């Protein structure tokens, strides 16, 4: 328990000392919010079913943070730690690999949460963002989405031979997904053919779940999203435990 706490604290410090990771999790989403907020404002529009741009952007950008943290932050950290021998050094101690993975999940979850909170604060203060959902439901959906993407990140980190390939593969998966899933652009602006492709992208389900819960849709209408993400989570955890490598 003591080692998990120390490890978590250490990993948080290292996360904040790494400017690139902290930028994409904490700063970049805010920049997007202010950019599109200043262009479109937050007036309800018909295309967006009576919601404003900021109202739908905050949950969508939250999904973006989740995907970036899971597929880039976590993947690169774990793969790099393995590649340069950080895990090898840890292996010479009585520490369980589960502690390493837990600490990583806790830190990234806290940072992702912080990223979302910053978006919510900025959205409320600057653009009077409307929120019609249930806070607890949003927290639950956010947790499900984050954990399933972290599980994907672990799988990717374990399967990729080096940090470099992990980074490249992570980017190749991440960027199209950000644009096509509705995380970066509102889904309403995407053509129907692209929406079909989007159904194969895990991030689409995080975007739909969070946006749905944000405007107060009941869980019963979001069952597909919950099932897909739970499936990813379970399979991801099993595969990443099976494929974990110290070196």
């Amino acid at each position: 328990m003591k080692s998990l706490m120390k490890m978590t604290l250490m990993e948080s410090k290292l996360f904040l000392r790494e400017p690139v990771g902290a930028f994409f999790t904490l700063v970049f989403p805010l920049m997007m919010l202010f950019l599109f907020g200043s262009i479109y404002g937050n007036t309800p529009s018909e295309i967006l079913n009576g919601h404003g741009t900021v109202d739908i952007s905050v949950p969508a950008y939250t999904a973006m943070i989740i995907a970036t943290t899971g597929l880039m932050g976590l993947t690169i950290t774990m793969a790099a730690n393995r590649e340069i021998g950080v895990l090898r050094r840890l292996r010479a101690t009585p520490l369980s690999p589960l502690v390493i993975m837990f600490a990583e999940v806790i830190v990234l979850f806290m940072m992702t949460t912080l990223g979302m909170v910053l978006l919510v604060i900025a959205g409320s203060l600057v653009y009077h963002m409307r929120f019609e959902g249930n806070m607890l439901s949003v927290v639950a959906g956010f947790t499900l989405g984050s954990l399933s993407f972290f599980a994907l990140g672990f799988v990717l980190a374990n399967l990729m031979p080096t940090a470099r390939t992990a980074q490249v593969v992570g980017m190749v998966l991440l960027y199209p997904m950000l644009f096509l899933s509705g995380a970066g652009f509102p889904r309403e602006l995407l053509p129907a053919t692209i929406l079909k492709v989007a159904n194969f992208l895990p991030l689409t389900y995080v975007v739909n779940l969070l946006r749905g819960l944000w405007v107060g849709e009941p869980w019963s209408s979001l069952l597909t999203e919950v099932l897909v993400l739970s499936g990813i989570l379970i399979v991801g955890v099993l595969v990443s435990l099976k494929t974990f490598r110290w070196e």
Partner: protein
Amino acid sequence: MEPIIQVEGLRKTYKTTVAVDGVSFEVHSGEIFGMVGPNGAGKTTTIECLEGLRKPDQGKLRVLGVDPQEDSKHLRERVGMQLQQSNLPDRMKVWEALDLYASFYSNATDWRVLLSQLGLEEKRATPFAKLSGGQKQRLFIALALLPDPQLVFLDELTTGLDPQARHATWDLVRDVRARGKTVFLTTHYMEEAEQLCDRVAILDHGRIVALDTPSELIHSLGAEERIVFTLKGTLPTDFCSALSGETRVEIDGERVIIHGKNGRQVPLVSEVVSRLSEQGIQFSDLRTEQASLEDVFLNLTGRKIRE
């Protein structure tokens, strides 16, 4: 007293390469035991089997009385390890690393004491990436000492260090032993093994080709000692015949080298000097060159270790 490490018939193969081919030895409490040999001789494989990081194909291993495969977690509580090619995150500071690693052990020693004992106090808040090679190795020794272990494994501790840092590191290893700990180290520097180890196992192609104290190895297997001097005139042709035992003369311009077997009754140097003065031969720059472990290795395998 039971040996700290017992190895019998250790064998490990990677696909088609035999890395360790039937190695047996014992390490006793309080000694610095060294395993030397060229790269690829099987040193690291042996040490990693002892650490429980690799599973041997064959052989009986006991480390601190337990099988490293079956009881690896227990072993890691009581053994300090410094591994080759291991690292800390670049931005982790020295004190943070010690504080973090201390939390992994149920009975860790006070890391602040280690910090000053290993001369890292000034580097306390320096990130790992900013440390010199010698400082990194000192930090790794500190990490290995955290569990207050009975036994410390040091794998290629001084590889890549400059000579000054290497000598400083040797002193640290001697300090570790002075605290009553047993040290098992590997190195491909023969000089290091000679200076540091109480006993040395010479490994080549996965087998132990010799195992003894460095001086005994040099004495019995080191071919010869050499007396080198510069001569004004010429050396009488029968000079060597008056020397006892087997000797050989090599003349290179003014320089004369007399080779003689080790372990003679009268030291070769005193015989040579007294014979030179008996015959009134003028000489200068006389020195003796002792055989080293390097020569032992050359004798045993027919090649130099760094080839």
